[in-house]
C-alpha cells in the first residue's frame, strides 16, 4: 500500500504507523500508514490514489479532538496536516487572515496579536490544535458565549476531495454570498466530507479592556437565582462558565476556593470599553449579593485569562488511564423558563443521576448556551447514560442528551447516545457529493444513526 504514496510524497512523508503512535485509541480504527502532504495539491493526489485503491483516510490535525463523532468503520491511512501549515495571507487593515489547515491556533493568535487583532476562539487543546481540525471538529471554548463557534469566524475554505479535486468555498471577504457555502457543512463534519487545506478567517480588534469575575455559590437554588440575574443584566459576558468547586480546586484555578460551603463557581469575562467593564463587574457584585453568593472575586485581565485557560484545559487532564481524553456527556437545554433559570435544577438532577449509578463526575456548564457537560473521571457505564438520558425524556423539545466525546470503546458502545439527526438520507447524499469515493472516515458522521 505504501509504494504509490511514497512516489507522491517521498519516503520521509509516507511511513508506517508505529504501534505507540497516538492515533489508534481515540479514532477506534488502527491506521497502518501515515502521510504528510505539503500542499493542497498533494492532499488531493493522495485522496485520488487512496480512492483508486479503496483505502480509507482519517485527516489528523493536532490530534486534540479526534474523540468526537461515531467510530469510523475504518481508517487505513492517517493524513497528518502538520506540514500543511503557515499563514498564507494576512491583511491587517481588512482584519482577515488565511492559513493552511495545519496551522496551530496558537500561531494564528500570535500573528494577530502583533497587529492588535484577535481570533476569539479558545477550544481546549489550543496550544496544539490546528485551525483545520478545530473547524472540522466544531469545538469551541468559553469564548463561544460572546463570539460564536469556529464557523462564525470562517469566511471560506479550500478543501480536497476523494475524486482528487480541490474546491474553494466562500472567500477572503467579510461579507459574501457568492455560491453555495460548502464551508458551513464542514463545521463538525469530523473530516468525513473533505480534507480542509486552507481556511480564511475574520479577525476582531483586541478588546480595550478585559476583566473577569468569579462568584462562589452554595447550592443549586442560589445558582439558579444568580444565573437568572446575569441573564437579566444588560451587560453581556464574552465568556461564562460554571464549574463545581471541587473541580475548580483540582484544576488549580488561581483564585480563593477555600469557602467551606462553596458548591458552584461561576466565572464571567467581560471585554468592552473600560467604563462598561467596570459597570459589568459592579452589576455582577449586585447580582451576587442578591443571590446570597458566598464569595465574589474580581480578576484582572491576566488572572482572568489564565483561569479560563485552566478551566478549558482541565477536562482533558481528567482522562481515563491510558486514554488521552475523558468521557464527556452533554445535556443541551433551554436555559430559562418564566424568568427563572432551569440549569441549576438540571445540574443537580444530573449529578445525582451520575452519583446514583456509581459514576462520579465533574461539571462544566455554559449557561448562555444552555449546555451542561458531565465530565467523567472514571468509566461510566450504560446505567449512567440511561439515567442522564432519562432526564430529557420528560420534555424532549426542551432538552437533548448526547455523548460529546470519549475513547472509541465508549463511543462505539453508546453509539445511540451520540445523537440522532433529521434526515439520514440527506446526510448520506451530502457525504457522497463531497466524498464520492466514500473513503474519508466512513461512518463517522453520516453513520451516526446506528441504533
Amino acid at each position: 500500500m505504501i509504494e504509490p504514496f511514497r512516489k507522491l510524497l517521498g519516503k520521509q512523508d509516507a511511513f508506517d504507523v508505529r504501534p505507540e503512535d497516538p492515533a489508534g485509541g481515540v479514532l477506534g480504527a488502527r491506521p497502518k500508514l501515515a502521510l504528510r502532504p505539503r500542499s493542497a495539491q498533494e492532499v488531493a493526489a493522495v485522496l485520488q490514489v487512496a480512492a483508486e485503491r479503496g483505502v480509507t483516510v482519517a485527516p489528523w490535525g493536532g490530534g486534540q479532538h479526534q474523540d468526537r463523532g461515531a467510530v469510523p468503520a475504518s481508517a487505513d491511512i492517517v493524513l497528518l496536516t502538520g506540514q500543511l501549515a503557515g499563514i498564507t495571507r494576512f491583511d491587517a487593515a481588512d482584519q482577515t487572515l488565511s492559513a493552511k489547515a495545519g496551522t496551530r491556533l496558537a500561531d494564528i493568535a500570535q500573528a494577530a496579536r502583533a497587529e492588535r487583532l484577535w481570533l476569539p476562539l479558545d477550544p481546549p487543546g489550543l496550544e496544539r490544535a490546528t485551525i483545520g481540525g478545530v473547524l472540522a471538529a466544531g469545538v469551541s471554548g468559553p469564548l463561544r458565549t460572546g463570539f460564536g463557534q469556529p464557523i462564525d469566524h470562517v469566511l471560506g475554505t479550500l478543501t480536497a476531495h476523494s475524486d482528487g479535486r480541490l474546491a474553494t468555498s466562500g472567500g477572503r471577504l467579510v461579507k459574501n454570498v457568492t455560491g453555495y457555502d460548502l464551508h458551513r457543512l464542514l463545521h463538525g463534519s469530523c473530516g468525513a466530507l473533505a480534507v480542509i487545506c486552507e481556511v480564511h478567517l475574520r479577525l476582531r480588534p483586541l478588546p480595550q479592556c478585559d476583566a473577569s469575575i468569579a462568584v462562589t455559590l452554595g447550592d443549586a437554588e442560589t445558582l439558579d437565582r444568580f444565573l437568572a440575574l446575569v441573564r437579566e443584566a444588560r451587560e453581556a459576558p464574552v465568556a461564562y462558565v460554571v464549574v463545581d468547586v471541587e473541580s475548580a480546586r483540582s484544576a488549580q484555578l488561581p483564585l480563593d476556593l477555600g469557602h467551606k460551603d462553596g458548591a458552584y463557581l461561576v466565572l464571567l469575562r467581560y471585554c468592552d470599553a473600560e467604563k462598561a467593564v467596570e459597570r459589568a463587574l459592579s452589576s455582577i457584585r449586585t447580582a451576587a449579593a442578591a443571590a446570597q453568593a458566598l464569595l465574589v472575586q474580581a480578576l484582572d485581565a491576566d488572572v482572568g485569562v489564565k483561569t479560563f485557560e485552566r478551566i478549558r484545559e482541565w477536562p482533558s487532564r481528567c482522562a481515563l488511564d491510558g486514554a488521552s481524553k475523558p468521557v464527556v456527556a452533554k445535556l443541551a437545554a433551554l436555559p430559562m423558563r418564566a424568568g427563572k433559570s432551569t440549569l441549576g435544577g438540571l445540574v443537580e438532577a444530573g449529578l445525582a443521576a451520575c452519583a446514583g449509578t456509581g459514576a462520579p463526575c465533574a461539571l462544566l456548564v455554559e449557561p448562555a448556551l444552555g449546555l451542561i457537560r458531565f465530565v467523567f473521571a472514571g468509566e461510566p457505564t450504560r446505567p449512567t447514560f440511561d439515567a442522564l438520558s432519562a432526564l430529557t425524556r420528560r420534555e424532549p423539545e426542551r432538552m437533548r442528551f448526547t455523548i460529546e466525546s470519549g475513547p472509541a470503546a465508549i463511543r462505539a458502545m453508546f453509539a445511540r447516545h451520540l445523537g440522532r439527526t433529521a434526515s439520514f438520507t440527506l446526510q448520506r447524499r451530502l457525504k457522497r457529493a463531497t466524498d464520492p469515493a466514500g473513503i474519508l472516515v466512513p461512518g463517522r458522521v453520516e453513520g451516526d444513526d446506528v441504533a
Partner: protein
Amino acid sequence: MLELARLVAIVGAEHVLTRPGETFVYECDGTTHFRQRPAAVVLPASTAEVAAVVRELAVAGVPFVARGAGTGLSGGAVPIHGGIVIETARMRRVIEIDADNRFARVECGITNAAVSKAARPFGLFYAPDPSSQAACTIGGNVAENSGGPHCFKYGATFRHVLGVTAVLPDGEIVECGGPLADAPGLDIGTFLVGSEGTCAIVTEATLRLLPLPERTETLLAAFSTIEIACDVVKRILAAGLEPSALEILDRATIEAVERSVYAAGYPKDAGAVLLVEFDGLSESVDAASARAQALFQEAAALGFERASDDAHRSKLWKGRKGAFGAMGRLAPDLYVQDAVVPRSRLPEVLAKVVAIGREHGLRLSNVFHAGDGNLHPNVSYDRRDADEMARVLAAGAKIMQVCVDAGGSLSGEHGIGIEKRDAMHLVFSDDDLLRMRLLREAFNPRELLNPGKVLPTGKRCVEAKAGMLEPSAEDGP
C-alpha cells in the same frame, strides 16, 4: 402532465392563480429585466400543504420556484423555465416567541420587519435589517442570506438562524437544527441559508433574538471627497472601534436624495457623507462615539451631526434608507449592482467604478456598506432604450471585473440568481463549480426546484468568461 385540480384540492381554488391578470406580477422580481410568467401561482397555508404541493409537482416533473415578497435583486424568484410559483404569502404566523430563551419560531412568509415588531414588546429584536425589511420575507432572507446596514456588527442572516423546517424537492419534510445548541449531524440548516431557494423550500425558521441595545448613537459626517470618507472608515476600524453600521453615500446619491422626498438635510456640497452608528452599553457607546468624532475632526470633516434620540436618528438615516427610492425617481428603471471588495481597496475601486459610469454615459451613484466593503453602484436608466440598456449591462460586467480583480466577489447580499450566474467563472474554477453542483444535486437531483439559477449551465458555461448574463429569449420574453 400536471392537473391543476390536484393542487386546487390541496390549497383550495381561491389559492391557485392562473389568469394572466393574476400571474402577471409574478413574472419578475426587483430586477425588472428578467421576465417569465409562471403557468400558475399556488399559495399554500402550511408546511404540510407545501409538501403536498411539492409532491404533486415532483411526480408530474413540473419545475417550481418559491417566492416571498419578490423584492429579490438577482432574479432568484423568476420562474425562468416556467412552471409553478409557490408563494408564501399565506404563511405569516409567528408560531412562538420564547422571550426567556430569546428565539422566535415563524412561518417563512412573515416579513422581516414583522419579526422585530413582534419581539419588541419583550425588549428583543431580530438583527438582520435589509433595507427592504418592511416587505421582504424571512424565507427570502434565509434563501439570500440577506444582510443590511447593521450586519457589519451582527452578521448576516446565517448568524441568526438557529434552525429551519424545510421541504425538499421531492416533498420530504426535514427539520434542521432548532433552539437547542449543538444539534448532532451535519449542519444542513445553516447550509440552506444562502442557497438561493435552489435546495429546499424553507417553511419555518427558528430565529435568534437579541436584547434591544441600551443606547444607540448615530453620527453623520460630511467630507469633501469619498476617498477621505473611506480613509476615516479605515481609521475607525484601526482604532479598534466596532460600530454597528458604517455607510457611505457619494455626491450623486446625496444630490438625488436631497432633491427627493427622502431629503435628510445632507450637505449638498459634500463629496460624501459617512453614517456611523454605535450601539451597546452607554459607557461603551460614549467612548466609541467620542473617539470617532475626534477622527472626523482630524480628517477635516466639513461638518457632523450626532443623534441620540429616535427622531433625530431616523432623520439621519432617512436619506440612506431612501437612497434607492430617490435614485429610482431619476429614471424609469434602477439597476442596483451589488459586489464586495476587501474594504482597504474601496477608494481605488470606487474611482474605477465612477470612471466606468462616465465612459458609458450613465447616471451612476454609489451608496455602500463601507465596513464590509459591500458596494452598491446604482444606475438610473430606461430599459425601453435598447442602447442605454446595453450600456448598463456592459458597465455592470466591467464593474464586476474590477471588483474581482481587486480581490472581491460577485455579491455581498443580493445573491447570484440568474443575473450573475454566468459570471461565477470569474471567481470560481470548474472544479469549484462542479462541487457546488454536486452539493445542490444532493438536495435537488432533478433540478425541478428553481432551475437555472446560481450555477452556469451548459453552453453558457463556456461563454461565461465574458462576464454577466445578458437577458435573452431563453431567460424569458
